[in-house]
């Protein structure tokens, strides 16, 4: 694309910035995809003004490669905006529409300025379309990335949240598992359990699987691995919280849990643990 053609848009953006901005904001405010509930008018105005100014500056450079250095300020602003909108709960198309909605006022302006020259209008329209489409796609890309970052962070949070090792009594650890056990989680569970065994010198660990939705062969294998590793560290494991359905599944799948003590509820398991530790729970005094 030759510089002098490109500069036509730059020229327009420069000369008619104010009216373009005004009509653009008008359109955005009318449009249903603006989501006035998530973003207020002043912020929208500010974002639009900033983007239009940077767009004008970048367009002067004459290149339409939006990955180039001339477009860096535009990319930055758009990126920040997409990420914040992703967090606010905009959909990807609503986010992209912010940029794409500039098309209509820009095309109107082009028509007004290049009135009779149909060829020029077609060409400039095409140039502007290409440019705005690219920017629109860029916002979607950043939006997606922002969302993915959120997902990854939440996954990590969930991983840490869902594998606490608690001390139930001196020498007795509890490991309430919540959610599906996959190999990555088993690794985390195992590591934190074994570390706690070393730290507290626990002899008994109760793995409670009340919060594990399904137990298949893989989950059972992971559980048995954890039990075996704890045993190697000199601690016995009790698996508790086995729901009736899970007991049936275990038998139907032919899983061998006979090497581990299993209990229906955490309370039962805790009673066994106390007994093993040589402790007994007694009523404080007879009620009067």
């Amino acid at each position, binding site marked *: 694309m030759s510089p002098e053609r490109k500069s036509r848009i730059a020229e327009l953006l420069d000369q008619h910035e104010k009216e373009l901005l005004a009509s653009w904001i008008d359109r955005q405010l009318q449009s249903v995809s603006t989501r006035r509930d998530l973003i207020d008018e002043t912020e929208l105005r500010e974002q639009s003004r900033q983007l239009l100014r940077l767009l004008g500056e970048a367009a002067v450079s004459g290149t339409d490669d939006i990955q180039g250095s001339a477009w860096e300020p535009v990319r930055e602003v758009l990126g920040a905006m997409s990420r914040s909108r992703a967090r606010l709960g905009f959909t990807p198309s609503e986010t992209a529409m912010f940029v794409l909605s500039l098309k209509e006022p820009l095309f109107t302006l082009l028509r007004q300025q290049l009135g009779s020259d149909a060829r020029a209008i077609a060409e400039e329209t095409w140039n502007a379309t290409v440019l705005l489409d690219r920017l629109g796609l860029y916002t979607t890309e950043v939006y997606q990335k922002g969302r993915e970052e959120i997902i990854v962070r939440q996954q990590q949070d969930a991983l840490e949240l869902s594998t606490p090792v608690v001390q139930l009594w001196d020498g007795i650890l509890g490991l309430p598992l919540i959610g599906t056990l996959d190999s990555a989680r088993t690794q985390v569970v*195992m*590591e934190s359990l*074994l570390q706690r065994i*070393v730290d507290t010198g626990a002899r008994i660990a109760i793995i409670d699987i009340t919060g594990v939705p399904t137990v298949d062969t893989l989950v059972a294998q992971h559980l048995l691995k954890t039990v075996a590793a704890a045993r*190697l*560290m*000199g601690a016995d494991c009790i698996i508790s919280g086995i729901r009736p359905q899970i007991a049936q599944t275990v038998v139907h799948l032919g899983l061998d849990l006979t090497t581990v003590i299993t209990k229906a509820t955490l309370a039962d398991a805790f009673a066994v643990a106390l007994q093993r530790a040589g402790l007994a729970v007694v009523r404080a005094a007879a009620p009067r």
Partner: protein
Amino acid sequence: MERIPILKMGPVLLVSIQVDMHDQLALTLQDDLTDRIVKTHARSVLIDISSLEVVDSFIGRMLGNIAAMSRVLDAETVVVGMRPAVAITLVELGMSLSGVRTALNVERAMEMLQVASANGHAAMGEGTDDRRPD
């Protein structure tokens, strides 16, 4: 020649592995240990591996073998002081040392053996106490 020392503490033989094991060393240890068990009439063997940071299937198998040999000679083996990373590695290798007893540290192991032998004596003596070690 390099050897792993075997310490006698009452009825217990204590083996502390602090160097990298290799074939010859393992064979020597097995020879020495079986000899000592027979000579001293030891009832238990403690193998302390708290200094081992890396294990492989060879070490795992060696521990299993030692335990099996001791059992034939009527001595019980307790593997002591395994590190979390080592435990995870052994489990991932599919070696859970099922025939071997384990303890967190030497102190715990001694405690465990004392309880076991006290129960054993009680059962042998009067015949009134019917408690059995777990």
